[in-house]
């Protein structure tokens, strides 16, 4: 009897603490460079409202937009310290955590969105597993579009690109090795330095998706678009695993499902949006340079050679790349 009482008391205590745990709202603080008012933030705020409703207020997503929490390395550090629980990142920004994420941005790996979608059926789960092993839960992956080279001067050939001052973002190893393979010596600058550097002539050529080119107002300087999509530009939303584990299994399911659905929606919207941005660039006077078949072939060969070198250098796992290529029917 005594032991039964003890068990009942213990069960009561357990039930009570479980109730308290459930009643305690979990706030996931998520930082991003993306500014408030952007399509991405609108979608995220709408998903956050949906999460709050679906979990009866047990899970709240609180966003820190516009880079107010610092750059990606600061955000990752704050996530480790528990000051933030999540962040939205570009691939190169989180390659230090899981190098395989660089595969999305390999030059000319995907010819178009359909190929990227196909490859991602195999790639995404492997990337998610890789981050999970490092203590991060990826809640969403979305394609933002394809980056093209744009320039202040006409760039119809690889030789002209070599003669141009080409921008490369900080910490972009894939970009660096790709440009080096093409014989281009890029100028490494932070994103915020691109516009003033275009004004002063420190750089003449920059790669980006059309939508960002307009949003950052680079189009007032860049007059030519080399119409060969170089690289896929993905975005990731991930949270720190310890914080995610504090959320009940049921609410984790809601989070995954609601955020996942928002990212699937964005994946479709982003490409349509980018096409509209490209049309707007043309309307603003940007000239489209269509590469000759020989030029396009030469660029793709550069891309293939660069990928082989990156693979040989162990920049990412050959198995994950093989899985992505096989999903597209391109495996060797």
């Amino acid at each position, binding site marked *: 009897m005594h032991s039964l009482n003890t068990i009942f008391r213990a069960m009561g205590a357990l039930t009570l603490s479980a109730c308290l745990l459930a009643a305690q709202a979990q706030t996931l603080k998520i930082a991003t460079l993306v500014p408030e008012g952007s399509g991405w933030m609108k979608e995220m705020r709408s998903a956050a409202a949906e999460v709050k409703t679906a979990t009866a207020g047990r899970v709240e997503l609180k966003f820190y937009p516009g880079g*107010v929490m610092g750059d990606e390395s600061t955000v990752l550090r704050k996530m480790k310290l528990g000051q933030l629980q999540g962040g939205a990142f570009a691939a190169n920004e989180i390659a230090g955590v899981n190098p395989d994420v660089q595969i999305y941005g390999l030059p000319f790996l995907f010819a178009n969105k359909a190929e990227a979608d196909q490859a991602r059926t195999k790639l995404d789960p492997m990337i998610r597993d890789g981050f999970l092993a490092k203590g991060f839960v990826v809640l969403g992956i979305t394609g933002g579009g394809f980056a093209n080279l744009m320039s202040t001067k006409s760039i119809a050939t690889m030789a002209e690109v070599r003669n141009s001052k080409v921008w490369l973002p900080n910490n972009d190893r894939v970009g660096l090795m790709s440009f080096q393979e093409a014989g281009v010596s890029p100028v490494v600058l932070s*994103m915020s330095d691109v516009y003033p550097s275009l004004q002063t002539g420190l750089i003449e050529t920059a790669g980006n998706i059309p939508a960002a080119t307009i949003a950052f107002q680079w189009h*007032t300087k860049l007059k030519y678009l080399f119409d060969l999509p170089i690289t896929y530009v993905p975005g990731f939303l991930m949270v720190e695993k310890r914080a995610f584990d504090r959320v009940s299994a049921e609410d984790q399911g809601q989070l995954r499902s609601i955020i996942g659905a928002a990212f699937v929606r964005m994946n479709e919207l982003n490409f349509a949006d980018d096409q509209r941005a490209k049309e707007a660039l043309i309307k603003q006077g940007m000239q489209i340079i269509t590469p000759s078949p020989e030029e396009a072939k030469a660029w793709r060969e550069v891309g293939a050679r660069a990928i082989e070198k990156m693979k040989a250098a162990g920049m990412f796992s050959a198995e994950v790349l093989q899985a992505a290529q096989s999903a597209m029917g391109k495996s060797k």
Partner: protein
Amino acid sequence: MARLTLVLLLTLAMGGCASVMRSAQQGLAGQLEAGILNHDDPETVRSGLPAYLILLDGAIAKNPADRELLCTSAKLYGAFAGSLLAPGERAKLLAKRAWSYGARAACAGDARLCELQSRDFDQIEALLKDTESTDLPLLRCVGESWSGWIQANAEDWNAVAEIPKVKAMFERMLVLERDSGDGNVQLYLGVLNSLLPEAYGGKPKQAREYFEAALTRSKRRNLMVHVLYAERYARLVFEQELHDKLLNEVLAAASEAPGLTLINTLAKERAKVLLESGKDYF
């Protein structure tokens, strides 16, 4: 206002000489603008203004190159679309009309400024270099109606792509104004410099200087300066203390101020909403 309408209708019916008509219409337009801007009930203006806007359309049809009439109409259509209507198709339609009047006023005022919509950024910059302080009213009319159209179409890349042109226009106005402005140019530049975070090449520090200058120049009487400073800058850099301080100042201030009563009344409404939503935002 009804009396003013009557005056205009009578003038039109009398078929007086063109200059008398123009003068009467300009007079009406100016008084209409003053009446609206000094009104303290947005709802009355919201429901009453459309009839007068149509009247102005009619006056423009008679005097298609009357720069002042075009500018007043651009301003009133712009205010109606941007401040009194909820964002949507109707706001877009009327902001487009405001901008078309602004563009026509530019062309009527200076032949070099015709077809502004089809000029690229470099051409606009070159045109602006030749403008003088006497062009300020025209530049203001064009810049404000153009920005209103961009604002109403913020999800259209064609509109977003025009932002640098408008920004160049306000930067030129700042140079031409020297120390004479009421802070409106600085207000626009504050907003335009708050669009992007620093990491993407935005200039929030510069935005703050513009907003502070706008507060000083408007003698803190234009409460929309406080509101936009809070909404665009303080939220961008996540400064809740500044955000709440500015908005509480709006709520504590009187709405009535010459030429600012309507905008201040709207600013108070917006300040309440922002203070409430700020609790979730910060």
